């Protein structure tokens, strides 16, 4: 298993009340796999994604990356796992040029020795992400949502991570753009063997891309479906969360 979490719980304080967002969730993602985390809005799937990345510290439960438990994220861990957030308008520093944002991981990890090296790396990943060079020198406000999301993806992938959490990366985008982005993600996966945890509430999309799917509801993982099972499932039963309860495989 590349990445897994066991019995993760998390609650947040909202005003005076404590809201339990995750109630003992366990999921796992294998190498080169696209795992979809499906659930309606507010079910805790985003938080679970962030727990896996250790961006949110779980109250209870354990997170393993390559079978070592992660308690505090190390530099290596941060290099190997990445996040593609939902809202491309928010995901880039509005004061930076796209180029700088894409190059940021290199700079943070000190991976590019010279300016040229950096530029080459950025240009390469940008091309893979479908960005033109002119885009690199603009500010986020001058680009469309699809272009921004490409930049975000380029930034996430520039370090060639092994595991990426895609948190509804296309929910704010048009279908034609969504198709392009998802295609691109899939292409990259083919080339690099990266694993995705793809969070979405769009069943059709999930069906189209998933190798495996977890269904979440009310802070719990209520089911796990394999690709074949997913194909067979009727839309209506999914919406009503009438899913076969599958015991965790770990």
């Amino acid at each position, binding site marked *: 298993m590349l990445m897994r979490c066991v019995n993760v719980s998390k609650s947040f304080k909202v005003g005076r009340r404590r809201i339990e967002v995750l109630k003992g969730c366990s999921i796992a993602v294998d190498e080169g796999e696209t795992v979809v985390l499906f659930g*309606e*809005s507010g079910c805790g799937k985003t938080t679970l994604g962030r727990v896996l990345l250790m961006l949110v510290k779980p109250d209870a439960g354990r997170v393993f990356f390559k079978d070592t438990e992660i308690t505090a994220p190390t530099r290596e861990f941060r290099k190997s796992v990445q996040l593609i957030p939902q809202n491309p308008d928010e995901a880039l520093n509005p004061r930076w040029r796209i180029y700088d944002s894409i190059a940021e991981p290199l700079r943070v990890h000190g991976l590019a020795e010279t300016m040229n090296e950096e530029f080459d790396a950025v240009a390469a990943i940008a091309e893979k992400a479908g960005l033109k060079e002119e885009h690199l020198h603009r500010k986020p406000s001058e680009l*469309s*949502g*699809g*272009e921004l999301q490409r930049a975000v993806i380029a930034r996430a992938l520039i370090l060639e991570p092994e595991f990426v959490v895609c948190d509804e990366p296309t929910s704010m985008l*048009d*279908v*034609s*753009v*969504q*198709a*392009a982005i*998802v*295609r691109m993600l899939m292409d990259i996966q083919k080339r690099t063997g990266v694993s995705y945890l793809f969070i979405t*509430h*769009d*069943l*059709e*999309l999930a*069906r*189209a*891309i998933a190798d495996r799917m977890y269904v979440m509801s009310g802070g719990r993982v209520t089911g796990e479906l394999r690709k074949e099972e997913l194909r067979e499932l009727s839309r209506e039963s999914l*919406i009503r969360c009438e899913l076969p309860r599958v015991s965790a495989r770990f």
Partner: protein
Amino acid sequence: MLKVENLVVRFKSRVGVVRAVDGVNFDVVSGERFVFVGESGSGKTVLAMALVRLLPNNATVTGRVIFDGVDLLKLSEKEMRKVRNCKIAYIPQNQASLNPLMKVGYQCAEPLVEQGLERGRIMRKVSELLEFFGIGHRFKDYPHKLSGGMRQRALLVMGLSREPEMIIADEPTKGLDAVKREQVVEAFQKLGRRTLMVITHDLPFAEKVADRIAVMYCGKIVEISPAREFFDCPLHPYSKGLLESLPERGMNPIKGFQPSLVNLPEGCRFRERCDLSTARCAEEPPLLEVDGSLVRCWLYADEMC
């Protein structure tokens, strides 16, 4: 019932004049469900708002919008208010369209109050309608207590309550997840045979609701087809691309990026992204009739000849 001729909407902006809607012609027949689809930036919302003249002051609208034989663009503001109130119900996008400080029931009743109906009747009517859409118990709640789907239904009630001749719904499924989208679909199916014009980017939704589909791209209508034909066999390359982008249809993207509205290509606006484009596409293609559909593409001009 509604006939739109050569509608043009221009916005003055810092970068120049934006033609958000550029020469749109269509008509909606009484009792029909007419759905506009298109991606963001195609001008569909602007078009809808232009019909009921709700655009902000920096927009200029030209052309003719003939409703029941009257050109809406020529009406005085007062007469137009009456049209909005009694004849055409515009249902805006649901995100923040309800006044946060007013109870849902009252907001739904407001147009009827404006019509001068008697209080008891209004109450009865509105609560019946809310009940009909399954949110009767929310009559005295404030909008923030409602979920997105409920809000959309409340907006529908607001539109229906005044018994309009036509309803224009703008992006009724925007920002809703699958479950809530389903609720809205149900609500729309409950509407019965009313003249309905829906603006949406959600193709599955359009499929469930539409009698006829119009596709907009960069301010122009590129295709108007009966719904079944459209989903079975779209005519315009853009329509094809759009449908093929759907996850369930293989997720094949259209190449390239949508051009910005300020800086549109000459001739066919889709030509730079189109695999089938020819030299002729540099000229503006006409709107051609093909088998009961209308399509704006040179491809079909040849067939005609």
